């Protein structure tokens, strides 16, 4: 018997479909890809929890999540873009991401270093979750939530992730990828807190859930979105030249 809360979940999909996007979006590595749960990635599995207390702000967890869903792209660090259709953060929605590199590094002409995506798999009044596609840096889930802690609303981002392939895992092991990921979500939480007038300092807790790599998933490198975006770069630049007035 279906309940109202069943609609908080997306329906299963075999392959992702991208809806109409604004002009100028680099739409790569999403259409036709499968979702990658944390069980499918190559690298070590990490649970990373980022949080910020909105001390002094008069906002409930439900109000915070309503704003976070509605204005989600606005809290992202400069150079990183989140493109969804008009439906926004709703179960089943597929978004295209145009991501800068560490420190906001972009390609020639400000082009993104990685074009990838996510699918919204779950959303309710106090949380929403994304799952990543093949080729994304990470195979896994990320949950954005808010809860009341002694009268103060705490915003939290929790990622349960593995590097999708050996190349991304090497980036993790030398620290570059993990630092970029941490910087990204710390900046996001600071922006979110500032939206409510709070100068919040994000906290972080990491748990190594599975220290083993999954060699059977090394083939995921075929879908590596950083490589595919780079290979497509000449086409991107030519298109931009011919789009200029």
């Amino acid at each position, binding site marked *: 018997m279906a309940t109202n809360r069943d609609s908080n*979940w*997306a329906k299963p999909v075999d392959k992702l479909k991208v809806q109409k996007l604004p002009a100028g979006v680099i739409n790569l590595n999403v259409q036709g890809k499968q979702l990658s749960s944390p069980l499918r990635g190559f690298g070590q599995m990490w649970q990373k929890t980022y949080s910020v207390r909105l001390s002094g702000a008069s906002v409930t967890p439900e109000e915070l999540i309503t704003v976070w869903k509605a204005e989600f792209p606005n809290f992202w660090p400069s150079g990183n873009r989140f493109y969804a259709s008009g439906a926004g953060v709703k179960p089943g929605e597929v978004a295209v991401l145009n991501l800068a590199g560490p420190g906001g590094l972009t390609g020639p002409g400000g082009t993104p270093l990685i074009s990838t995506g996510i699918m919204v798999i779950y959303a309710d009044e106090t949380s929403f*979750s994304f799952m990543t596609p093949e080729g994304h840096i990470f195979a896994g889930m990320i949950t954005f939530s808010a809860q009341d802690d002694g009268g103060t609303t705490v915003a939290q981002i929790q990622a349960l992730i593995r590097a999708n392939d050996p190349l991304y895992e090497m980036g993790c092991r030398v620290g570059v990828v993990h630092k970029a990921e941490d910087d990204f979500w710390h900046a996001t939480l600071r922006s979110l807190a500032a939206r409510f007038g709070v100068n919040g300092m994000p906290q972080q807790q990491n748990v190594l859930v599975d220290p083993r790599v999954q060699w059977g998933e090394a083939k995921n490198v075929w879908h590596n979105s950083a490589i595919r975006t780079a290979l497509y770069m000449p086409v991107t630049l030519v298109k931009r030249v011919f789009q200029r007035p």
Partner: protein
Amino acid sequence: MSPKPNLHLTVRHLSHAAVIDIVGEVTAHAENALMDAYTRASSGGAPLILLNFAGLEYMNSSGIGLLVTLLIRANRQKQKLIAIGLNEHYQQIFELTRLNEAIGIFETEAEALAIS
């Protein structure tokens, strides 16, 4: 203080398996209770752990995350994890999140024990 989870877990030990009967909601607040139940279920050295979802009222995405970490713990112990009693909606959720690729799904306890 974390809210009390709306969850009741019981552990039954069978000859070659242990069953965790889940009644209530599996959300982030269920972490301690679920991991404690798994520890109790594993205490007898059972190679097979059945998660009985017949009494499940609701599971959100954090609950799915807990099942992933539970699966990793079971794999480390060389245990097989099986789900029974999932309704059609949650079978779809297992398919959406690819949990069905790692956790066997059976209708009943008898079927799971017969095939495993």
